[in-house]
């Protein structure tokens, strides 16, 4: 990433600018009021702005989205490849389940289904990465990552406690 210079403008706001790979200088002037100006410096006179585009909050969002859009979809594609073949699901823990009241270690769900419980939602609270001593309670929702078959199996376990698989 190019080095961005930050300049305080007393009474006005802050100016950020950098030189693009192509050698053009562009910048953004953030007024204290939150209004922004997009600055495109002049080729002939590099100290002056050849053109200035005024952006209100909405325009700024639109422009940022347009400039960021391709990057975001590229990143999303990467992310999907990483978890190809895996499913994430939210599974309720029923009171009838044999697992309800048991710790994760006792339930040994990962060794039996190959699915990891990455978080548990309890009421308004979310417990990330619960440990082996974590006790599942009826009404919890387990956030599980695994193969579609494994998830299906885990769903059965958390409902009845009866194994559907081998």
């Amino acid at each position: 990433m190019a080095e961005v210079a930050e300049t305080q403008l007393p009474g006005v706001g802050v100016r950020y600018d950098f030189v693009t790979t192509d050698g053009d200088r562009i910048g953004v002037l953030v007024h204290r009021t939150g209004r922004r100006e997009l600055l495109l410096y002049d080729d002939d006179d590099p100290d002056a702005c050849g053109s200035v585009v005024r952006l209100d909050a909405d325009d700024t969002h639109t422009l940022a989205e347009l400039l960021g859009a391709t990057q975001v979809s590229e990143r999303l594609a990467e992310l999907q490849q990483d978890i190809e073949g895996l499913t994430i699901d939210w599974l309720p823990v029923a009171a009838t389940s044999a697992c309800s009241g048991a710790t994760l270690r006792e339930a040994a769900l990962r060794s039996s289904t190959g699915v990891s419980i990455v978080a548990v939602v309890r009421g308004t609270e979310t417990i990330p990465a619960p440990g082996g001593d974590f006790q599942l309670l009826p009404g919890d929702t387990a956030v599980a990552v695994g193969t579609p078959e494994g998830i299906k199996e885990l769903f059965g376990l958390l409902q009845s406690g009866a194994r559907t698989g081998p």
Partner: protein
Amino acid sequence: MSLAVTPGDVAPVLVELGFVVLVLAGLARLADRTGFSPIPFYLVAGLVVGGGGVIGLDLGDDAVAVGSEVGVVLLLLTLGLEYTAEELRSNLRVGLPAGLVDLVANAVPGAVVALVLGWSATAAVLLGGVTYISSSGVISKVLADLDRLGNRETPSVLSILVMEDLAMAVYLPVLAVLLAGGSLVAGLVSVAVALAAVTVILFVALRHGATISRALLSRSDEALLLGVLGLTLVVAGVAAQLQVSAAVGAFLVGIALGGPAQERASLLVRPLRDLFAAAFFFFFGLQIRPSDLVPALGAALALAVLTALTKVATGWWAAGRIGIARPGRLRAGTALVARGEFSIVIAGLGVAAGIEAELGPVAAAYVLLLAVTGPLVTRWSDHLAAALPGAPRRPRTPGKT
């Protein structure tokens, strides 16, 4: 006129005041259309309407005078609100050399011309102040209108404006003591007292500004506006009592406020400032006989040309220090030429104290000249740069400015 106005008296005062405000409204509209600062328009209106003017309206009541006092206080309050304490502090470190060059290059010519004209030393200090201080109001508007706020030479311009505003915090109290007169020793003691008072207020402002801001902050715009206004008037009044000058008191209140209170207050105070500042410029014009303006014109013109050149040199030098090329250096220099509200504030203090009969007319003519030509010169500065001997490039094509 006393405050206890009988109902019979109020009608003509209201009508008269209403007409004055309507005229000012028309002028503000004209100024907006033409892209000029309204200050010279208000001054001319005062000149035309005032005693000895074309119309000779007798506004010899205190209403406009009190309004103009409030105008000065609000002008300085909004100036203080422009900057946060942190901006002032960091700018003081970086901008000091340019600030000193600006002070010497622009105050000295004014003072020297005053002495050449045979004025007193106090009048020379006053005229030095008039020629020293650029109009931050006119200049920031011009920079925004010409899309120059993002330019790389602009920080050097803004830095000089900040230094000038800080200099006012020292200059105005010293001036207040000078205007009060007295012996040299008593004067020095008063100056010391005044500067100590400023230092104490500034210290309180920087240390406890956040507390004051929080105390004043309210969900209600009304409560915030009245709170800020009340505090400002009280501090300004107390400062005037201590001979620190009301204006400096108001300026320091503006600096003390910070955070959301500062931002909202500066928006809320602006319309009030516009009203009372208009009253102030108008009142200053009222006090000057147009017939006195003619003999003052020669001195004002000479002073305007001289100090326009010194401001250009100041900006040229300051922009050069941060590595700006010739066209940008000229833009910075010409941007600083405009004088306006604070030159009139300083001259107004002298006129009120009855220091030098010619000061008012000379300052009025001087500001009229530079408030109008300053923005014009900087608008054409890129063409000037191309015309300068040794200009490396062709002039920029029109429409691409």
